[in-house]
């Protein structure tokens, strides 16, 4: 039982298939030849490729589940920390306040109660309320929009972000996949999203979304090269793209110590990659209303928001794997160490988001080309020197 895939393979082999196939074989004999497919399905499930695909499906779904659970926690943390920074409490919705909401909805208020007495929970239910709200909204396609691209754009953004979750391991045990090119594939998947942003921005037939999409493309030009160059230093030292090897290489010393410059460049570029303040130009709400998401509504908007948080979460995961020693650490299990480090970076992201203003498009281009690119090249040169000398 070394990885998530092994576990789900064992689960399918020992439990799922022996339980389901007898039922299917029983169905096969009910009304032949019409019920023959049930038997075919059972035989496929017992075969090697069938078991394999089932195991993969379950492994990927478990990874997604873990990822989405973390996203909910990140959203919650963001709200609470933002509240604390702004000198307010943040969401306080609790199970206790549901009673009050129910009586409000029923138009029935037995006696006037001061709301704060029941709105005094930890506020995790706010996420549920938001989810319900997104489900209830009507999906409106703007007039004269390019319907096909308008539909495809958010799908590209959301699906490429969800893809990221299954490609980055939480630990050697909880890893849905282990590609030989590892993090390089992750970065390739990371840079698919701006295509979705650009497509949506153009398809909405709205000038705000158009400028938002253009900004996303311009931003991609600015940070993508320094981002990959700052990662190249780590790849060079580890001699591999595989997260497992990179973490194993950091047993003695985390990469953040010898490659501090690369770490800084990587964090700044990652902020731009996941489009968080101060680099959230594509959805600058002050001048572009909501940027490229202006015309998106309903569950689609909810999923776009979730995808943005997934990207932030995966960004922090990659930073942890590359520079902070991944899941290595004493006493506690690896997964706990990994999550502690990831949440440390995420809390830094959140605090940054609520304390600095947004920078301009031309300034991010200048920053990317004139500051980050030379710094990442210096870091790469130092890494080469490090490898050659030691």
């Amino acid at each position, binding site marked *: 039982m070394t990885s998530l895939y092994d576990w789900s393979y064992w689960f399918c082999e020992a439990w799922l298939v022996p339980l389901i196939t007898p039922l299917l074989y029983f169905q096969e004999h009910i009304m032949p030849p019409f019920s023959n497919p049930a038997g075919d399905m059972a035989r496929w499930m017992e075969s090697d490729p069938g078991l394999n695909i089932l195991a993969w499906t379950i492994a990927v779904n478990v990874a997604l589940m873990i990822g989405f659970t973390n996203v909910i926690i990140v959203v919650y943390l963001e709200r609470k920390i933002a509240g604390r920074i702004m000198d307010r409490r943040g969401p306080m919705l609790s199970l206790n306040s549901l009673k009050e909401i129910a009586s409000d909805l029923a138009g029935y208020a037995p006696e006037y109660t001061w709301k704060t007495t029941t709105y005094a929970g930890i506020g995790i239910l706010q996420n549920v309320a938001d989810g319900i709200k997104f489900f209830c909204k009507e999906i409106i396609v703007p007039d004269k929009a390019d319907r096909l691209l308008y539909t495809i754009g958010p799908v590209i953004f959301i699906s490429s972000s969800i893809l990221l979750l299954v490609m980055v391991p939480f630990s050697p045990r909880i890893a849905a996949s282990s590609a030989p090119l590892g993090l390089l594939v992750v970065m390739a998947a990371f840079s698919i999203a701006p295509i979705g942003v650009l497509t949506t921005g153009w398809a909405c037939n709205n000038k705000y979304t158009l400028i938002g999409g253009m900004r996303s493309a311009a931003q991609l030009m600015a940070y993508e090269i320094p981002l990959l160059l700052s990662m190249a230093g780590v790849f060079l030292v580890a001699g591999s793209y595989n997260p497992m090897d990179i973490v194993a290489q950091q047993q003695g010393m985390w990469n953040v110590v010898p490659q501090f410059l690369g770490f800084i460049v990587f964090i700044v570029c990652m902020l731009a990659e996941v489009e968080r303040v101060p680099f959230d130009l594509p959805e600058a709400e002050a*001048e572009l209303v909501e940027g490229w998401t202006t015309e998106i509504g309903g569950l689609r908007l909810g999923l776009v928001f979730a995808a943005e948080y997934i990207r932030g979460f995966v960004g922090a995961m990659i930073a942890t794997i590359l520079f902070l020693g991944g899941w290595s650490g004493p006493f506690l299990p690896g997964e706990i160490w990994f999550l502690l480090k990831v949440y440390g970076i995420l809390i830094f992201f959140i605090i940054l988001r*609520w304390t600095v203003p947004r920078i301009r498009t031309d300034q991010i281009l200048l920053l990317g080309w004139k500051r980050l690119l030379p710094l990442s090249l210096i870091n790469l040169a130092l890494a080469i020197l490090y490898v050659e000398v030691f």
Partner: protein
Amino acid sequence: MAEMWIHMGPQHPMTHGLWNLRIKVNGETITDAVPELGYLHRSVEKIGERRKYFMNTTLTDRLCYASAMTWTHCYCLAAEELMGVEAPLRAKYIRTVVLELQRIASHLMWLGAYLPDLGLITGFLYGMRDREMFLNLLEIPSGGRLLYNYVKIGGVKRDLPPGFEAKAERVMQTLERRLKEYENLYDNSKIFRMRNDGVGVYSASDAINWGITGPNLRSAGVPFDLRQADSYDAYPELDFEPVTNTAAGGGSDCFSRYRQRVDEMHQSMDLVRQALAKMPEGKVMADSVPLRASGEAFRRTEDSRGEALMYLVGDGSDRPYRWKIRSPMFTTVSAAPHFLKGYKVADVPAIMGSIDMCIGETDK
């Protein structure tokens, strides 16, 4: 990318009110801009001609939602001049105190509105949190929090209650402590400086030619303050100099306008302290205020946003024959295309936010 017109407004996060700014962009660079006003026109001047003099303070309160006290005060000064009434000395001092408190509240509202324009929503809550203290302070004598109707023709409505000085002092000390925090958070922030330095520049001579007044003019280095130049109420007896700021390269930019308002808050607190210390005893309302007046009168005062001017003509009846309001933001917004051109789309909220828009008084 071809040039195109973008509407920022009438419903847009940048507008801070109900108006429309059409900008012509080439990619992200602004090549032309046209402000369109009139969405919030309530014909205050015309309505005022059908109402008695003392009734119009209700309208003037509603001229600017962020600075109601100063506009009512300006109207009352003009009406007093028309009627030949003079407010008692204590009323003048009380007016000075509440005007300066209102100015601080207005500048704090500006600070709260300006930072979301730059992308920092936290600043909004900070500004509003501190404004709340000053609204509480203004509530003590007037009973209102947004529309006070406190300054009356011939004085003020009520006397300050005992203990007001101590409360005001406590609030001002809190604000001073917090302003120090904000200056650390904003002035020392590299990104804040990147967004503000050298953005929306106009020179002092341009500002004078375009009719820009108030903090926006003083931020270009022109030491012109109507509280001194055309003094009224208790200001002649207080000791102060107009504060000015200039941008690094001369003239006024977003950062000098930001600094100007923060400095004015410090100055206002100083003025409140002086006025409270020198506060004489006595009545707060003139003995008799006539209902009818004839002739013409105008007064200009230093509003939170610039030069407010009220012109009243009376024909011997109890209603004004003609009433004209000169709003400082109307001229400033009209000049906006000149200092918007050449900057980026992202600078539009920064520039329009830094001049402190208030559509209520602009459209009247």
